[in-house]
């Protein structure tokens, strides 16, 4: 089979353990001074790429990509500490975020420049939860896609992907080039250890700007308002069975 040239796009998001707060103007989530880390679903995709190499598949190169503020570089370093060979960083101004379609357009050009034949993306980012970039990229490239993968196996030129769907799993078979998006149970991402972070500082990281791409990434959506979810209402205690039946009837459950 031909060599695998893997592209893994990653996103810098607010850390999963942080409770997001909404800014005063109710226009966005507060990001200043908040701990950020790599989107957990993207960690799964880096890990899968590295495991393909460790399974002795002919992986030529694993390239990590991120479009984000200057600090997204730290995330790319983490990706390289986990095993990516090099990184590409497209600098986006702080506070200006790309929409999934914009990212997919950039990725399409990166795929063509890098001659990638396998793109492994996280199924969604935990900040926007759009779950669109992989699908849109597949559409733009006209490549097959296997989303929400929970197992990936290679046999010659055939790639078999088990994907998690409602109430079970679905098995797909496709040939390269291919888009895969990862689901939670695909693998257990390794920890980017201190020595590996240090080594990753020596790996090449290319810096680009939007001007290097011929893509219209202007936003198509306008955020009108961002609000907190309604606070949970406390439950009530009922005195006896009759009281409970009364309550249930009141709520229309009986």
């Amino acid at each position, binding site marked *: 089979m031909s060599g695998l040239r893997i592209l893994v796009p990653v996103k810098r998001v607010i850390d*999963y*353990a942080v409770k997001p707060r909404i800014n005063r103007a109710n226009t966005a989530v507060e990001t200043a001074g908040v701990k950020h880390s790599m989107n*957990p679903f993207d960690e799964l995709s880096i890990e899968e790429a590295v495991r393909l190499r460790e399974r002795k598949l002919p992986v030529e190169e694993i390239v990590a990509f991120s479009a984000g503020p200057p600090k997204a570089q730290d995330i790319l370093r983490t990706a390289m500490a986990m095993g990516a060979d090099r990184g590409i960083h497209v600098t986006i101004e702080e506070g200006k975020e790309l929409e999934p379609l914009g990212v997919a357009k950039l990725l399409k050009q990166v795929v063509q420049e890098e001659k990638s034949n396998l793109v492994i993306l996280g199924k969604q980012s*935990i900040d926007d939860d759009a779950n669109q970039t992989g699908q849109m990229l597949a559409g733009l490239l006209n490549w097959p896609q296997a989303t929400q993968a929970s197992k990936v196996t290679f046999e010659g030129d055939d790639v078999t992907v088990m994907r998690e769907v409602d109430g079970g799993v679905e098995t797909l078979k496709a040939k390269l080039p291919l888009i895969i998006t990862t689901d*939670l149970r695909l693998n*257990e*991402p*390794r*920890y980017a*250890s*201190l*020595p590996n972070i240090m080594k990753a500082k020596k790996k090449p990281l290319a810096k680009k700007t939007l001007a290097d791409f011929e893509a219209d990434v202007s936003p198509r959506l306008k955020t009108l308002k961002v609000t907190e979810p309604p606070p949970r209402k406390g439950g009530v205690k009922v005195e006896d069975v009759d009281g409970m039946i009364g309550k249930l009837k009141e709520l229309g459950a009986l």
Partner: protein
Amino acid sequence: MSSKALNLRHQVIRIYKELLYLGREYPLGYDYFRSRLHKAFASQANLKDEDQIKKGIERAEFVKKEIEALYYLKRYRILRQRYEKT
């Protein structure tokens, strides 16, 4: 100090630093982690026997793996709760 002992000394410092780095994300806070880590290493500072020191390093490596697994599981469980338990 012989070169072998010096080498062991470096290994101990290295694993200590790696554990400190891991501690930055410890659920109970970095201060909690650091003071306990320091105490654990300080309590073994009197070890002179090479085999004993090697055993100590092995134990530190084991603890490192345990902490990494703890972080992974914590994240996995939270994500599963958020995205799969509807």
